[in-house]
């Protein structure tokens, strides 16, 4: 079974600074997808960014980028120019590509605080 580990329960960053959230996973599969979801206090689950394991290029979405290290099974999220609206829980998630629409396996989350 796949597992996802987020070792940082809480992180803090000053506005306009950069922060990196860590995620590692364990799998025996070679083809899979990785995601970062954001959950603000409103409890919505909002997709931040996704990465296909077969792609070597790291995904980017505006201020959000990932550092995907397949051999190390690491998938960290970098938030640049942090904004107050970035404060939320961030969940790393894994999904197998073997099944066309399989479940997400989530990490335990990292709570990000953004300070002035």
């Amino acid at each position, binding site marked *: 079974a796949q597992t996802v580990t987020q070792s940082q329960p809480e992180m803090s960053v000053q506005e306009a600074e950069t922060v990196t959230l860590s995620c590692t996973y364990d799998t025996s599969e070679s083809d899979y*997808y990785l*995601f970062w*979801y954001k959950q603000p206090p*409103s*409890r*919505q*689950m*909002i*997709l931040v960014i*996704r990465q*296909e394991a077969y792609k070597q290029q790291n995904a980017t979405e505006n201020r959000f980028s990932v550092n995907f290290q397949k051999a190390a099974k690491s998938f960290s999220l970098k938030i640049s120019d942090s904004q107050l609206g970035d404060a939320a829980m961030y*969940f790393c998630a894994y999904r197998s*590509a073997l099944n*066309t*629409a399989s*479940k*997400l396996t*989530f*990490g*335990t*989350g990292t709570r990000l605080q953004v300070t002035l």
Partner: protein
Amino acid sequence: DARVTQTPRDKVTEMGQEVTMRCQPILGHNTVFWYRQTMMQGLELLAYFRNRAPLDDSGMPKDRFSAEMPDATLATLKIQPSEPRDSAVYFCASGTKGNQPQHFGDGTRLSIL
């Protein structure tokens, strides 16, 4: 933007009562997932459907939980009888194939007194 719609947003009821949560997936999405979020267990899959057929409900307590898709526009999750330990946020998500992400509803916050 197309959205997954969940009702009710919040539900408070007494132990032993039946609870029904509803989900309208995004039109065209053929896969529907039910997740539960608690402080202790985090986010965990309860059940999921593809083309309305149940594919995996191994995460669901069978004696009190049931999940169905009466039609392509409605998924339901029922708890009968409810217990205080069922208190959680229940999310519905829908998706399609391949690398397309799952889209989540806003969740139902369930409190069993």
